[in-house]
């Protein structure tokens, strides 16, 4: 599709051109994408309404929570659009409803990392042995108490983080860059269009 090809090409040229007309158009395109994406939010909202309204109409098992979702969404959309996201009422709900749930969900990670380390670091072969040992070095290296006993641990942990870790991540990053470029190129040239109805060529 010509639109994808042109917009991709201009954005690439913009990066190297720095100034001039191409650069201006490229900057515009990048800004426009944000606007178009905002329109896509409407589609997402329509999807949520469709899924949950149907649950309510059909009186499915969790229709009560679907109702709660749609009601919350309606109330805060109206409040946010009419009075603005910086209004006192909106901020109050943001601070006392949204933020604690958001923070709570994020902090579930602390529990997940405990059960994951307990489960994942079993030494089954040489690879998992390497995995476990380097994890232990770094976990313990961050505890001030342990480093009073094993004086070399913090610097060993620092070394593992800054040398072999950097090497591994760098290898993945360089390879990933090549992959990302190749795939993006296929998108710009129109070889990847399963989303466009091309399916498998």
């Amino acid at each position: 599709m010509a639109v994808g090809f042109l917009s991709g090409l201009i954005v690439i040229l913009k990066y190297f051109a720095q100034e001039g007309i191409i650069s201006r158009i490229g900057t515009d395109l990048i800004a426009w994408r944000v606007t178009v994406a905002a329109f896509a939010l409407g589609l997402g909202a329509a999807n949520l309404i469709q899924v949950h309204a149907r649950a309510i109409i059909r009186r499915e098992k969790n229709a009560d929570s679907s109702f709660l979702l749609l009601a919350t969404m309606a109330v805060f959309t109206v409040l946010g659009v009419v009075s603005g996201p910086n209004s006192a009422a909106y901020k109050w709900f943001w601070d006392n409803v949204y933020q604690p749930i958001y923070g709570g969900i994020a902090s579930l990670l602390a529990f997940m990392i405990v059960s994951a380390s307990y489960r994942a670091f079993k030494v089954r072969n040489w690879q998992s042995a390497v995995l476990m040992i380097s994890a232990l070095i770094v976990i313990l290296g961050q505890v001030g108490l342990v480093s009073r006993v094993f004086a070399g641990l913090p610097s060993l942990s620092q070394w593992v983080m800054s040398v072999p870790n950097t090497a591994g991540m760098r290898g993945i990053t360089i390879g990933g860059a090549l992959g990302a470029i190749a795939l993006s190129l296929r998108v710009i040239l129109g070889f990847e269009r399963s989303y466009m109805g091309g399916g498998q060529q």
Partner: protein
Amino acid sequence: MRRSWATAVQSIDRRVLYALTFVIVLLPLVRPLGFPLNITPNTRRAFEIIDALPEGSLVFHSVGFDPSGDAEVWPQMQALSRHFMSKGLRIVYFPTNVGGDMYAEAIRAQLAPKFGYEYGRDFAILPFKAGGAPAIAAMADFYSLYTVDRDGTPLSELPIFDGFRGMQDVSLITTSSTGDDALFLAVYLEPKFHIPIVVGGAATIMPVLGPYLASGQIKGIISGLAGAAEYEVLSEMPGQAIGAMDAQSAGHLFIACLVILGNVGFFAQSRAVRRKEGV
């Protein structure tokens, strides 16, 4: 007998693990243990770079986090801001996360008055710009991206922007971010303007930044809550981070014990199985 012990260690119910985690992290918060604290070279370097800036230098500070990640980054942002303000640096906060401006506002309301910082003259808050990498790339042409501050006041009316031409006039960029702000800054702004970048962020993204630190695209890193605690120690202005470090250490020891326990059980079990099979 031995096998049943090994099997039991192998299969502790996850709910038990969760309950233990809860208790072990909570106890040191109630009764601090006073574990010692290490100062890492990365934090020290970050501190020294900022400490060496002359009074009145202009610092841009990204606010790229929201409630989900504020546990690590918000203490850093406070520690950094306290240091900036005690040194008389001028600060421009630019939110890169939808929720970020709330924290910049908290600095304006709580911290700034303590240091006699006046909004518009000594510091300013820019509006949030969506888009991640492209938005940061667009900062290269500053006034095309920002024309007003967060309150909608034109930048030309703020004394801090008097004579400000663009990113070339910035002495330092710092971040408080759980996202890739630092990466985007290093990729899109550093090559053009050669502004030193000091990164504050979640400990998670730090390993990713290692390569950029090694290559000099980033000058210093303050990592996670521990980084914040170290910074509080270095700048001699204690805050909430130091108090949390005991709970951190307890949690680390707990996880290390679990990893070892899990492996001991695993070995005992596989040996018992092997013996039974007569291998």
